[in-house]
Structure formats: C-alpha cells, structure tokens
C-alpha cells in the first residue's frame, strides 16, 4: 500500500475522533473541520514516523486539543465580541444560553436523542465553562493539567467545571439523569 493510501486509511479511522474532540472544544462545525484538517496535514508531514506508531491516536488527540485551544485563544477577542457579548449578564459574567428544557418529552427520547441533547447542552455552555469540562470529563485531564493548559488558576478551573456541571444538570433535567441510571 502506498503512503497516500495508508494515510487515507488513517484519516478514515481517526476522522471522527479528531473532529469530535475539536467540535466539543470549539463548538463550531466549520472551525472544528478546519482544525481537524490542520491536524491531519500535520500528521501527514510526520507520517513516516507516525504510521508504525501504536500511539498515533494519542498524538492526534494531543495535537487536536492543542490546536483547538490555540484557536480559541487566538480568536478569543473577536469571538467574544461577536458571539459571547450577547450572553453576558449585567455584571459582565458569561451566562449560559437558554434553551427549552426537555422535561416534557424526555420519556420518549431514544438513546440517540439523549446523546444529541447532551451534545447540544454541551455546545451551548459558555466557552469558559465548556472547555475545562470537556478537558476533564472527555479528555481525562487532571485539574492541574487543565489549569496549566488554559493558563488559569486551579481554583478557577474547579469553579468553572462545577458551574458547567450544575448548568448541564439543570439543562438536562432530573428525568434524564434517571434514564441514564436505569440504563446501566
């Protein structure tokens, strides 16, 4: 198999993982796609080293997280101005975007729908809450690592994650939590 074919196979194998990681961090499909493409372009440059390495998935994950965080910090000002300023309260703190609580229909939701709901709730969290939450729960980073990556204090990381969890629970509703418990 040629390098191009091998790389295409790798691309197919990892595209969803890379895209999901970027998407959950930046919460924007077009930006997540750009970041994912950049990740694979970098992987291609080092394909000779990566193709036989069992840790290629970890490498892709790390590069995706780093590029996503770079992207968020690079475009923070512009991004805040256009999209997040609208979601700040009078004290200037970010607040979550409101969307209709699903309590009325939750019993009829299939597992897929519930996952969509979680994804949607996650996407609608304020960036400062979403990013540490995703890094902690989905990427398995420790509080200290998140603080170092984001350049913020440990206390702020804990507070942001706590607030994000509270918001998620509020959004997803108690019935939905019950559904998860009964699923296990």
């Amino acid at each position, binding site marked *: 198999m040629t390098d191009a074919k091998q790389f295409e196979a790798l691309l197919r194998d990892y595209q*969803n993982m890379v*895209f999901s990681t970027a*998407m959950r961090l930046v919460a924007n499909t077009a930006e997540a*796609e750009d970041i*994912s493409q950049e990740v*694979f372009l970098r992987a291609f440059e080092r394909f000779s080293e990566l193709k036989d390495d069992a840790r290629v998935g970890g490498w892709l994950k790390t590069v995706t997280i780093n590029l996503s965080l770079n992207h968020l910090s690079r475009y923070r000002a512009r991004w805040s101005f256009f999209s997040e300023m609208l979601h700040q309260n009078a004290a200037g703190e970010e607040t979550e975007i409101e969307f209709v609580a699903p309590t009325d229909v939750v019993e009829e939701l299939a597992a897929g729908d519930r996952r969509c709901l*979680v994804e949607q709730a996650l996407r609608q969290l304020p960036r400062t809450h979403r990013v540490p939450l995703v890094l902690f729960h*989905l990427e398995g980073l420790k509080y200290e690592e998140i603080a170092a990556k984001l350049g913020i204090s440990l206390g702020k990381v804990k507070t942001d994650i706590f607030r994000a969890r509270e918001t998620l*629970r509020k959004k997803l509703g108690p019935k939905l*939590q019950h559904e998860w418990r009964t699923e296990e």
Partner: protein
Amino acid sequence: MEDRGVNPELEQELEREISQALQGLPDLAAPRGFVARTMSALERPTPWRLRSWATWPMAVRIAFLSVALAGVVVAVVEWRAVEPGLFAAAYHSLAPVLSGVKCFGNVLTALAGAVALGVEHLGKGFILAAAVAALCASAVCAGFGTIFVRFALARSGRSQL
C-alpha cells in the same frame, strides 16, 4: 466552590452524574467529504503568495526586494527634488548615523584591501587550500547542524506522543 458552602457529597454525585452522561457519548461523525477535502488539500500545495516570505521562490524574493528598494530610492530622490530644504535638514539630523555607516564602509574597504594584499603575497596554492578547508569546515558544521536538528525534532515528536 467551598465558599458557596457546597456539600462535598452532593458535588461528588454531580461529578458522577455528569461523567456518566458525557463518557457515554460516542464520537461525532466528521462532515461528509472530509476525507476527500483533506486528501485534496494534501495534494495541492499552498500557493507561494499565501506562504511566509522566507519560503517564496528565490526569484520572487529578489524581485520583491528590488522593487521595494527601487521604491525607497525613488521616494528619497523625489523628496530631495520636491523639498530640498526639508531633505537637507533631515540629512543633517541623520548625519551622525550616516557617518557611522560611512565608518563601517571604510572598515570593510580596509579589510578588502588587506585580503587583496594577502592574496598577492600568499600565493594561489595557499588561498585554494584555505578555501577548501573553509568549505570542508562549513560542510561539517552543516552536517552537525542537521543531525542536531533532526535529533531535537525527534525528541520533541516523542514528547508530543
């Protein structure tokens, strides 16, 4: 969090609930055509004008520098013609800097003279041998440089993995 008087047990329960909710999430599907778009981006090199200046083709870089330099010369000449008084004043204020440049030029001229004198007295054989030795030394430096850069990149790659 502690400031708000949150019960640690409730906090742990909340963490558990959210972990369950999030860790059960499957990967999102990448957009349709993502593989094709990425593969075509790999095959299509970025146009030189979108790359950094250092990676532009040599001819384009030389042309760019020439045009930029010509622009500066034309601007200075035009300025001298249109505003001779202002130009003279500016030249006067820049005289110390220009004298430094002139001094540097004198040093270079003296060095060139010394080299020319050396070539005359040392003979062609010696000069040729010195040139070959200098080339060999440069090649050795370039070789070591390449080895160290590759070594450093390999280490950074491993640490990233």
